[in-house]
Structures are given as C-alpha cells and as structure tokens.
C-alpha cells in the first residue's frame, strides 16, 4: 500500500483544482458543476466553496448517475446499482465542469458524456479529476488534474472521502 494523498494533501489538490477551474472559466456563460456519483459528486460539492473563494460562483450544481450508460452492463450483471441523477437545471448553454475522483480507462467519462448529451447541449464540457492514474482505453483526457500518477492495471486507486468513507485519503493498493 502506498499513501498517495493524506487529508491535508487532498485538500490542497482540491484547492489547486478550484483555482485552475476558476482561472479557465468564461465570465459570460453560466457555470455548472456536475459530479459523477458517488465520489465525484462529493468532490464536486466540496469544490463549490473553494471555487467561490477562487472568485467563481457556479450557477448550478448537480449529480450524475451513469449506471444506465455504462458499456459493461452485460458483464457486471446484478452489481449495477442505479442511483438518482439530480440535475434540476437545464444544462444547455452552460459551461459544465464534470467532476470525478479517478480517471482510469475513460469509460466512466464516456458514459457521463452520453448521459449529459441526453440532458441537453452544454456550451462546453470540461473534465476535472482528483487523480489521473493513466491506462486510458479511450481517447479521453482531463482538463484539470489534482494528481497524476503511473499505475499498473492490477493495482487499485482507492479514494476515500469523509462524507462517504469517514476518512480523507487516497491509497494505491496492489503489487506493482
């Protein structure tokens, strides 16, 4: 086990993300922050006050469940758990920041993009992730990254958050 981020480092990475997003955001378009359930949602909610401190007040916040858009539904079978998508605003013509905890194969993000397309047509979608662990299987890249780290497929990057897991930390588990 390798501790990639402790609680304080995780907080710093989030503040860095918030500053980078605030600097890049357009001033004339409403900004929406949408987290992918579940940990992306938690991170997105935490980003809101940090973004305000960095000078950006997002107009909208939402949570996206991508289960119904996954491309591996036929292989994960009954493990698929459908949760609610809570996006109670029109995403059309917003500058939408999609937030997730870990960027890995890119398939979650592909599913999220499809789900968002069914909800409307944002002016732009940007991707913010806490950890980019490499090993992409699709041509998808993040615009804002907290931590970049090289990993092996047999390893797992475990993001634990206070609200969900009772502790703030990011671990790399498994043999190299």
């Amino acid at each position, binding site marked *: 086990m390798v501790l990639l981020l402790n609680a304080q480092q995780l907080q710093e990475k989030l503040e860095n993300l918030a500053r980078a997003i605030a600097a890049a955001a357009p001033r004339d378009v409403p900004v929406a922050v949408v987290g992918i359930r579940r940990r992306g949602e938690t991170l997105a909610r935490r980003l809101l006050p940090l973004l305000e401190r960095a000078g950006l007040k997002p107009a909208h916040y939402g949570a996206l469940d991508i289960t119904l858009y996954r491309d591996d539904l036929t292989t*994960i079978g009954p493990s698929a758990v459908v949760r609610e998508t809570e996006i109670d605003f029109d995403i059309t013509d917003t500058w939408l920041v999609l937030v997730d905890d870990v960027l890995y*194969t890119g398939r979650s993000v592909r599913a999220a993009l499809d789900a968002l397309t069914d909800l409307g047509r944002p002016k732009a979608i940007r991707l913010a992730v806490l950890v980019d662990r490499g090993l992409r299987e699709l041509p998808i890249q993040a615009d804002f990254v907290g931590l970049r780290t090289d990993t092996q497929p047999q390893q797992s990057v475990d993001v634990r958050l206070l609200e969900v897991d009772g502790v703030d930390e990011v671990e790399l588990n498994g043999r190299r």
Partner: protein
Amino acid sequence: MAAAKSAERPVWTRKHLLTLAELTPEEILHILDTAEGFKAVSTRSVKKVPALRGRVVVLMFFEESTRTRMSFELAAQRLSADVIEFSEKMSSTKKGETLLDTARNIEAMGVDIMVLRHGAAGAANHLAQATKCCVVNAGDGQHAHPTQALLDLFTIRERKGRIAGLNVAIVGDITHSRVARSDLRGLQKLGAHVTFVGPPTLVPKSFEKLGARVTHDFDSILPEMDVVNMLRIQKERIASNVFPSIREYVRLFGMNSERLKRCKPDVLIMHPGPVNRGIELAADVADGPHSSILRQVTNGLAVRMAVLFLCQQAAMPDVEA
C-alpha cells in the same frame, strides 16, 4: 470503472418477478430505490436511456389490458429495448397451441424478457420454469400483480415518506382481486397494517388468516386510515349473486366527499384504475387533492423500468461478485 470494486453483494439476483410473496423486504426496497433513479428519465428532453439496448421484450397478454400493457411497453422502450407484442386474438393459441409451446417459439426468436398477463393463477411461475428468458408477471388470475403492488408501495412512500406503521385500507372485491393480494404481501413485508373492507360475500373473514384485519363497516375505520385503496368493481360480477345492488354498494363502500371528511386530513386515496366514477369512487374525490391515481400511473412506468432492468441484469453473469 474508476476504482472498479464491488463494495457489497448485490441485493437483487432474481431473473424473474413472479410474486411479492417470495421477496424479502430488502429486495422490495431495492426495486423502489432503483425506480427512484428511473423517475427522472420520463421528465427529460430525451426520455430514453440505453440500458437495455439490443434486448428484446415480448409482451404476452392473454387477458385484456390497456394501461398495464402500455406501461410495460413504454417502460421497455425507455430502456431502449425492442418490443414485440403477442396478443391472443391474432395468435395460434386460438388454434390450440399451449402456453409453453407459444413461449418456446417466441424464445426461439431470441427474446430476453417475457412479460406475461394470463387468466390462470400460476401461469407466470409455469412459464419461468420452462424458459431461459426472464419472466415478469403482469397479472396471473386471482393470484398476483406484483408491479401494481410495487407502484402502490412506491406512491405511498413518495407521498407519506414511509410505509412502516401506516394503516392502509383496501376496499372492494377482495376475493377476486390479485391487486389486493399483492398489495397485502408488499405492505406487510414493509411493516404497514392492512385492513380489508367490503361486503361479507366479497371479503370473507377467512382473509384474517393472511394477517389482514377484515371489516364490513367502512365508516368505523375511516378515522384511523393513512391510505385508502379503492379497488375497481368489476361490472360483470355485479350481475352475480355475491354482489348487493350497485346502489347499496355505493352507499356502504363508495368513497365520496362525505366519507373523506371523516378521514385524516392527509389521507391518501388510491385506485389501480380504471375508475368507475360514481361507484367505488366519487368524481370529486378521484380528481381531488387526496387522490394519487395519476401519480400511480406515472410511477408505474418508473417501477416497471426498474423491474425490467433488474431482472435483465440478474440474468447476466456477475463477474465482480
């Protein structure tokens, strides 16, 4: 996908939905929770998700039904499944084919889910044993109508915030009602108290063995009820001698504004539809603020999407578990 690990064992592992009697409270709640996730699909601009893309659902209705069939059809379409219909009128059962032969022929066309409405109790179980498809019971004889009960439970939870501890009256022809049986099972498992109400010929005391309270005096129980579910009176039964006259039935067991005044101020009035206005339910009550009739129809769609999705997922190999 990101951190691809399955935290807990899946709650739902059944490829068929046959009756609520065999489900655990956790399984029932899992369907209701999953349905919450499907509710929003019907309110978006694109009312479709790709979850069952490439799957085939066959609607096999051996009994007349408009709304249940349409609800299942739309639910399947909103999951992006292909839907084919089999109706007895135009079919070979008229030429003497048995249910199982019909089912095997349909299965041979590569169908994934069979939704069955049949006049014989146990038809869905029978089918489930004989086919590799998922089977969803859309009503079998006087036995069960699980998706109706699930949408009733969903609507009660939505409006009341809970199900446990509620007093629920089910009023009407209990003897011949699969809705009453399925509602009773579901409500009991989730901790509600059920009272069956109706004339002795349609609500015999023997139903107490199922764990419900039985009364023939509607007015006496009104003040305690949180939910009153008015069943449809089947016109064809009125002709038979188990039934009092319509006028007597309306006087003793019809829900109207006078009776509504004696109920709790936040009582929920339900009806599985279609309503006989002026018989079991007065028009002003059916259209009033206490009524959840149209809400039930809307929720039925989300619940049926959840059921089709969960059964199909359970038919897949679970590599993460």
